[in-house]
């Protein structure tokens, strides 16, 4: 125990502190931009990033992973904030945490491995597209100067890291361009036009909402969607950090941790969040490995806001837009284009469907659910292809069955048999390369056997594997020589 705490917290002190500081600097623009996407004051995202990072440092399952306010979650909140306001969002955040905590306690997190990768690829691509689309109103058709600032920001964030990596390029872009805008008295929209920044620590309060069934009805669907999307992105991120660091993580603990972090964050006036792929990659690349890096990121973030809060409102919107365009380009999976050509057609279709549904509904959870259902259907269709081959020897006719016999494949199974066989023939049905899964499968075997018997043929079943034999012995009626087909 002590050994583990030492390893997770203090085995990489210098690297963790430096990486934590870098992450805090990179988090500020994102936390503000995601607040603006959600339609709340920047403080809601900044408080959330502080609370979540600090809490997850202690209760998360993946040391070195960064959690904070995220775009995926912000995008889900938009309608709730628009229709009902901040207090309902805070209540929904708390409920999201409770749902995630329950998922973690009941170990539902491991079900996430059943989500096909085509859906995950669709998820990140849709997320990237939505983040980009959310920027459009902030820079298209406003002024030429706005376009110029977006372009300069993009140049800085992409070219500068080639020469200088110590300070995150987005922050340098913010510092330089905010200074230029202030001293040049340039006419640009600022963060201050869209919300307030308060230089105070977050404080505990209970969301001001009526505690009744109606409120629950309003927030519950949002909370479920937030819980699913939050866990999805968190578990994906933890797999990425696992692989980058060559270490393992505890997925159920992470799920519980995300829940605890969101519950507390909701009570401190922050919006729901989850793990962040981009920031976690920055953290690991900057040398962060332990829990200390996440803690430092949260603490340094709130320190910066307390000190510099007054300046944050003066950040020109086009600079933030430029940074968000970079985030969306970084989020998009650019190998998807070759994936579309190379992957099986059904996988490609699942990926595209996920993206299209998300972009159409602006709801990541709907796209994921549709993607999972579609790929489940494709999977069933694929494994329900069953083959029955007929061989003839001097004494008997043998049918070799290959494949899975279950509700979706029984029709093909029965049709594959030729019942126009002369009377008094020995028929063998060989199941050596088949598996019978359910009562529909057993029923199909019954039907075939009994039909042949009606033609006075002798049927032998052989090659059943242990579990197929078990279900046949339990359910089949053909063993009774006088069995008749049930009249359906």
């Amino acid at each position: 125990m002590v050994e583990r705490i030492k390893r997770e917290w203090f085995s990489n002190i210098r690297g963790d502190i430096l990486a934590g500081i870098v992450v805090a600097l990179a988090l500020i623009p994102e936390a503000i931009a995601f607040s603006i996407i959600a339609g709340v004051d920047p403080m809601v995202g900044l408080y959330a990033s502080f609370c979540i990072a600090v809490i997850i440092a202690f209760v998360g399952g993946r040391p070195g992973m960064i959690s904070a306010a995220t775009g995926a979650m912000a995008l889900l909140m938009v309608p709730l904030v628009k229709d009902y306001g901040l207090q309902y969002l805070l209540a929904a955040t708390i409920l999201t945490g409770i749902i995630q905590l329950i998922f973690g306690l009941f170990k539902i997190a491991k079900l996430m491995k059943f989500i096909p990768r085509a859906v995950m690829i669709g998820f990140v691509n849709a997320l990237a597209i939505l983040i980009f689309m959310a920027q459009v109103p902030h820079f298209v058709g406003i002024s030429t100067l706005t376009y110029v600032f977006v372009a300069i920001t993009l140049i800085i964030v992409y070219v500068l890291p080639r020469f200088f990596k110590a300070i995150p390029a987005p922050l340098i872009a913010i510092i330089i361009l905010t200074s230029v805008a202030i001293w040049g008295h340039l006419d640009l929209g600022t963060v201050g036009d869209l919300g307030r920044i308060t230089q105070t620590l977050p404080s505990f309060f209970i969301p001001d909402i009526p505690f009744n069934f109606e409120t629950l009805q309003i927030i519950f669907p949002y909370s479920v969607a937030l819980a699913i999307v939050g866990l999805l992105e968190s578990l994906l991120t933890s797999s990425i950090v696992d692989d980058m660091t060559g270490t393992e993580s505890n997925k159920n603990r992470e799920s519980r941790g995300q829940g605890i972090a969101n519950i507390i964050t909701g009570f401190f006036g922050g919006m729901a969040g989850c793990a962040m792929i981009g920031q976690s990659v920055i953290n690991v690349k900057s040398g962060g490995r332990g829990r200390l890096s996440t803690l430092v990121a949260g603490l340094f973030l709130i320190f910066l806001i307390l000190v510099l809060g007054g300046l944050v409102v003066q950040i020109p919107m086009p600079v933030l837009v430029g940074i968000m365009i970079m985030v969306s380009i970084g989020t998009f999976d650019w190998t998807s284009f070759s994936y579309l050509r190379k992957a099986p057609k059904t996988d490609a279709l699942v990926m595209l469907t996920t993206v299209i549904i998300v972009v159409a509904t602006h709801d990541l959870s709907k796209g994921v659910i549709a993607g999972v259902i579609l790929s489940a259907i494709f999977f069933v269709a694929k494994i329900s292809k069953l083959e029955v081959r007929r061989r003839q020897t001097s004494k008997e006719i043998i049918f070799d069955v290959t494949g899975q016999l279950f509700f979706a494949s029984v029709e093909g199974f029965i049709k594959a048999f030729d019942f126009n066989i002369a009377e008094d023939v020995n028929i063998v049905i060989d199941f050596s390369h088949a598996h019978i899964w359910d009562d529909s499968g057993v029923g199909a075997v019954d039907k075939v056997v009994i039909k042949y018997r009606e033609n006075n043929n002798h049927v032998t079943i052989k090659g059943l594997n242990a579990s197929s034999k078990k279900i046949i012995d339990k359910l089949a009626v053909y063993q009774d020589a006088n069995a008749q087909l049930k009249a359906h």
Partner: protein
Amino acid sequence: MYQRILLAADGSKNSIRAAQEAAKIASLIPDSTIEILFVADLSKIKSEVLHSQNHEEIELKRHQKLLPIAEQLSAKNVNHETKIITGDPGPAIVEYANNEKVDLVIIGSRGLNALQEFVLGSVSHKVVKRVQCPVIVVK
């Protein structure tokens, strides 16, 4: 002579060419061993994880990339072993070579022009500059 030879490889065509040259050199030196070093690029891990169902599949894909390299070495009966590490390819190769004190580093070159090298960065260039032992860059 060169007992421990480090072959930095990513499975690309130029790394296979480098493997052929490495095999020639090692086959002339009795008791030499080639270490095939593959650096899993931290910037590409996101897409690797996204395109694999689990960790085993990622490792399998990486090993598959290196199969043609190992084949080149096996064909010449050269002792070889494979090592996979994560990091930023250039610095990671340099660090590994210097820490392990290998006798020779062999690496392929993509043959980038000046612009490509500015945008993409040349791994072989970094390795040549900062590794403390002799380096062979194979065109």
